């Protein structure tokens, strides 16, 4: 299992369109929890996704206020790696098929 996913960009560059179409796109969704500190969640988003501070803060607030935030969309294998890494950091993260594509 590939578990390390740090600062990987969204676009799965170089993947054939047909392959992406077959796999479909997957969302990495972070769910709210009443325990983790806001500053901690912002740091984790910056660390894992390379977000700048304002973007990380926007996603954190979305999680806090709406209960969930889609933090990444792309191919399944990479989405799994991100979910795993978020779970390593004790955030509640799920994988969800992106039905809009």
């Amino acid at each position, binding site marked *: *299992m590939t*578990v390390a996913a*740090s600062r990987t960009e969204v676009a799965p560059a170089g993947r054939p369109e047909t392959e992406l179409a077959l796999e479909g796109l997957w969302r990495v969704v972070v769910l709210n*929890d*009443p*325990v*983790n*500190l806001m*500053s*901690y969640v912002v*740091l984790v988003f*910056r*660390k894992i996704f390379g977000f700048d501070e304002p973007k990380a803060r926007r996603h954190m607030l979305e999680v806090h206020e709406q209960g969930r935030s889609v933090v990444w969309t792309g191919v399944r294998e990479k989405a*799994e790696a991100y979910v*795993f890494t978020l*779970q*390593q*950091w*004790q*955030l*509640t993260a*799920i*994988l969800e098929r992106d039905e809009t594509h």
Partner: protein
Amino acid sequence: MKRIEVKLSLAVVAPLLDLIKATVDGLAGRLAAPQHLQDLDEELRAAWQGELLGGQNDDCRRFLALFDREFFASGTVGFDEANAEAVLRACAAIRLRLRERELANLPDEAIESGSVDSAQLSEAVAKAFLCYMFLATLQELIIEHLDSAILDGQ
């Protein structure tokens, strides 16, 4: 390597360590955060959870290592880029477990706003709440002083 040393009150922190240790023991065979892995096949799910659990155990072991002989002599614990991430994650895991067990009857709003009146709590719950807040304080200190090291690290 940037390093911060934090002087803690032995009189306050030492009595919390037995609950922290017991909570870590309770995490030895289970993950602190809820999992939603129904999309994965059984074999992958087992490997996934096993690897998460190994990492969580390692984080907690490194966290407990802070409270060594030097801590009991001087009250000082040190954080640097070598242990900051593990300590942050361990604090999160222990807080999640405390919230799920000892603090289960406290409302989220009261905990988030800090409006819990410790005088109204039983001794056991008050101690768990003090642990919960202590771990949050450690996290805040690390994030405030070592965020660059964490973000720049691999």
